Structures are given as structure tokens and as C-alpha cells.
């Protein structure tokens, strides 16, 4: 069997195992929707101004929560599930088989990306059905490219963060501590209006801010161009590459307790 076929096989088995844990699968999908509903309830009456045009809160939140979904499905899920899989000795076992390491990793990454895409579709549909949001057409290519670049990069970062996670029990704490503050200061959970300049400068160092900006731009109903934010995409991709490099160099197949 070719290595690519082996990787696809990993995706298939990973997918089987994923859906057989219904509680985990349900909350993976329900979580972003919960945030979408809550933020719309809290801030629903306010009008937003996007690039000089007034629009609804939902038009701001659908791409923001879509970005959040990608980060959850890729970064958070990969980091936490790999940490527990490593604790369980499954990674060590895989290491002893002829399955190439990259095929195993590719299986995880492709599956997480598929889940992220499915989540984004659900979030967008939810927005269309309940919040009267319109799906952009002219910026659709930009939206898809941003989605895939973001998913791949956050998967790589999820792999990278496992290098400093000692065991499964520590993983939710480390993963949340690394991502939640960034979600708050990157125009995802709450619009960054009137935040101190230094905070925005700080946020701009990290990929979450750039990913959220690129997603917003590609979802902007007033956008007349292609909606590509190439600089933001480049920053996200650079972080992804850095993550891949760290994971390739320092990834551990056995738990350190």
C-alpha cells in the first residue's frame, strides 16, 4: 500500500473512532454554535460598522465563530487528543509499526481539517437560517483558501504545543491558557473597539488575530474585490510552518510524567 493510501486509511479509522464517542462529537459541533447564539443574544441589537458600512452583529460573528471553530477543531482537538493518545501508549505502539510517522500525522491533520470544514459549513448555515446572514459569492475562493490555510496551520500548531504538554491531564489547561486570551484580544469573541494600542500590537504578533481578520475580510458582504488578505494569510502560514518545524524536531511519541 502506498504511503498516501495509508494516510487516507488513517483518516477513515480516525473518523470511525471520532463518531463513536457521541458526547465528544456532539460538543465539538455544539460548542461554536453556543458561542454564536450567546454573543448574538448579548450584542445582537448593536449595529456594526465594517469598512464604513453598517451591518448586523451576526455578519460580524459568523466569520468570527467560523474562525473559532477552525481553531477548536484543529489546534485544541489535536493537542488534547494526541496528549491523551500518547498517555494511553497508542502513539508508542504506532511508532513500532511500519506505518510512516508522517502518514499517521497526516491522517490526524486531514481528519481535523475535514471536521473544521464541516463545522464552518454548519456555522454558516446556522447564520443564514437564524440570523439572516448572506453568504458572499465573489469572495468565496478567498474564504475557502483562508479556511484551508488556517486549518492546516492550526493543526501544525496543535502538534507543536504537544511538545510542551507533559501528559493528558495537563493538556486542557495548557491548551486553553495558550489560546483563550488570544481569542479575546483578536476580534473573535468581542469586537476590539477602544482597546489600548499596545494590546492590539501584542495581538498582532500571533496567528489568531490575522486568521480572524482574513476570515472577516473574506466574509465581508461589502467587499467588491477578491477578499484575499494576503499579509494576514502569510502570517498565519508562517506560524503554521514554524509549528510544523517544531513538531518535526521535538515531537514525543511517549509520555513524560
Amino acid at each position, binding site marked *: 500500500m502506498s504511503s498516501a493510501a495509508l494516510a487516507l*486509511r488513517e483518516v477513515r*479509522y480516525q473518523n*470511525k473512532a471520532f463518531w463513536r464517542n457521541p458526547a465528544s462529537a456532539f460538543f465539538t459541533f455544539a460548542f461554536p454554535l453556543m458561542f454564536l447564539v450567546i454573543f448574538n443574544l448579548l450584542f445582537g441589537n448593536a449595529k456594526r460598522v465594517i469598512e464604513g458600512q453598517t451591518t448586523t452583529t451576526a455578519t460580524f460573528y459568523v466569520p468570527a465563530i467560523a474562525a473559532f471553530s477552525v481553531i477548536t477543531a484543529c489546534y485544541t482537538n489535536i493537542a488534547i487528543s494526541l496528549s491523551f493518545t500518547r498517555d494511553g501508549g497508542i502513539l508508542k*505502539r504506532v511508532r513500532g509499526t511500519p506505518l510512516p510517522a508522517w502518514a499517521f500525522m497526516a491522517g490526524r491533520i486531514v481528519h481535523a481539517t475535514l471536521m473544521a470544514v464541516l463545522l464552518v459549513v454548519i456555522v454558516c448555515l446556522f447564520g443564514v437560517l437564524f440570523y439572516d446572514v448572506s453568504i458572499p459569492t465573489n469572495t468565496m475562493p478567498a474564504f475557502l483558501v483562508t479556511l484551508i490555510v488556517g486549518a492546516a496551520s492550526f493543526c501544525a500548531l496543535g502538534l507543536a504545543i504537544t511538545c510542551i504538554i507533559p501528559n493528558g491531564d495537563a493538556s486542557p489547561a495548557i491548551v486553553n491558557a495558550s489560546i483563550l486570551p488570544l481569542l479575546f484580544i483578536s476580534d473573535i469573541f468581542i469586537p476590539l473597539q477602544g482597546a489600548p494600542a499596545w494590546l492590539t500590537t501584542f495581538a498582532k504578533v500571533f496567528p489568531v488575530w490575522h486568521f480572524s481578520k482574513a476570515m472577516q475580510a473574506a466574509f465581508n458582504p461589502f467587499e467588491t474585490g477578491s477578499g484575499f488578505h494576503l499579509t494576514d494569510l502569510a502570517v498565519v502560514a508562517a506560524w503554521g510552518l514554524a509549528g510544523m518545524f517544531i513538531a518535526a524536531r521535538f515531537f514525543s511519541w511517549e509520555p513524560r510524567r
Partner: protein
Amino acid sequence: MDGIAIEVQNLKKSYGDLEAVAGIDVQVRQGEVYSLLGPNGAGKTTTVEILEGYRERTSGEVNVLGYDPARGERSFKQRIGIVLQSTGVEPYLTVEEVVELHRGYYPSPRPLDEVIEVVELTAKRKSRVGKLSGGQQRRLDVAVGLAGDPELLFLDEPTTGFDPSARRHAWAMVKNLQALGKTVFLTTHYMDEAQNLADRAAIIVGGRIVAEGPPGTLGGRAEAPTSVTFQLPPHAPPLPEHLHPHVSSSRGVHLEATEPMKTLHDLTGWALEHDVELESLSVARPSLEDVYLSLTGEPSDAAASSPAVPAGERPT
């Protein structure tokens, strides 16, 4: 590498100041069941994980099926099977799916039904791994190790935590593998396991091999004196002096016989002549356990029942 599956010379592995493996030599022939026997912390797992390719050695030569396992080559991994000490299988897949998944990793795997049959999980093949008992999960571990039809199988303490009947089944399975001409490298801290399965065994203590050979002759068992024990009835006449009997206060007698046939002849002749019944008469060669305990420096049962520390040296 003619007929030799594993060749190890002066293997050393240190973790900081701790020398886990302190220079061992091992040679395992193809088709042989070789057992590394030793107490916890003796260096068994470190050794087997170096042979499997998980650990890098500090120094020494290691050759497994013509490969240096530390290089982790795919063609090497295709020819070996590994059963690690601890279980690790995706809990949401079924028995059948896990075996099938692993079969796909190898160029010429063993048939699915056969693998499941060998570990006696046919009745559980549609069950999720998470719902299996500990013993069943362990058997699935073995199934996964066999999925690729390896010519060399590593078993790291395969029956730890098994009940007696599960262990008998596991042993029968290893014997099946041997009948198929597979080489098996087994670590265990159960002496009866080595005794029952191994063609040759090595006892490892503190990172060193202290004895090696077929379990029947290990540690000089073949030459060691046979022990004869029995119970002497009250008022029996004194035993012949030349037998050097040790008589306990409860009239239990222990003889060490270097020529057991002659000793028994003298003993039973004496008993018939004096019309003495030798109750609970038993004749035993030193067990592997005796050899093992004396070599590993652990107190045997006999020593444990007497004070381990002389009275004057007891802590007060």
C-alpha cells in the same frame, strides 16, 4: 546472520549516572524462544526496547535480523512484531477493526480471522476495545503484534496480571508460534513462564546477565544436589549418620543428595529395616525459583521463615 535472529555484544545503556544495562551479550537463534528473566528494574524492558528500536543504546553492538534497530528502518519494522508492556489501543474501534487497521501496515499480513482466532477473541470480534476485560485487551495487544505475520516477535511481560487459566492460554499461543518457526524474545518475571516456554533463558539482575542456558540447567541446576524431605514419626531410631540429615524441631527431615539414587536406596532400606514410615516423602531437584532467588539475592522461602537479620544486628 546465518540462523541468528538477535546478536548483542557488550550492550550498555545509561540514564545519567544510572547504568540500566551494564554490558550484556545475547545471542538468539532463529526459531528459538528466548526469555529474559529478572526482577522489576533489572533492565529487561530497557534491553527489549533497544532491540525493538525504541531506545538508543549508550554503547555496544546490536544486530536484529541483520538490522541496527536504532535506525528505525521501515523494512525492519515490517519483519518484527512488538507487544509492549502496557496496553495501548484505540478504545472506540472494534477488535476486528483494530486488527484490520494494523494488518494494513504490513506487506504480507496474517489472515484476519486467523489472527483473531489465535488470541481467542473470535467471540469478541465485533466488541469495542474499551469494553473488553483487561485480559482480553492484553490478548488484543498480542493480536496486533501478530497482525503483520512477523518472523520475530517481542513480548514484554505478556502475562502480567493474567489469571492462571489465561496464562495457560497465552503459553499455548507462544508454543503455537514456535511450532510455526517464529523467533520469540520474551521478558518475564515469572519463573514458571520461562520454564514452560523458553528454549533458553537468561537471568538479568542489576543490568547484568548472571546466568544463561536452557531452563533445566540454568545456574548449575543440573549439578546442584537434589533435596529429599520427609517427616519422621516419633520414637523412630536415629537416621544413618552418613546421610547428613537436618532434622527440625517438628521432626521434618531434609537431606541434600548429590547421588539421589544411592541416597534413596540407603534411606528406604533403613526405613524398611526399622519399620519406619517416611511420611510426606518428596524428592525434588532445585527449582528454577531456587536458582533464581539465589542469583537475584532475594530471600527464598526457607530463609524468609528464619530471622533474616542476626539477633545482635536488629534495629532497636
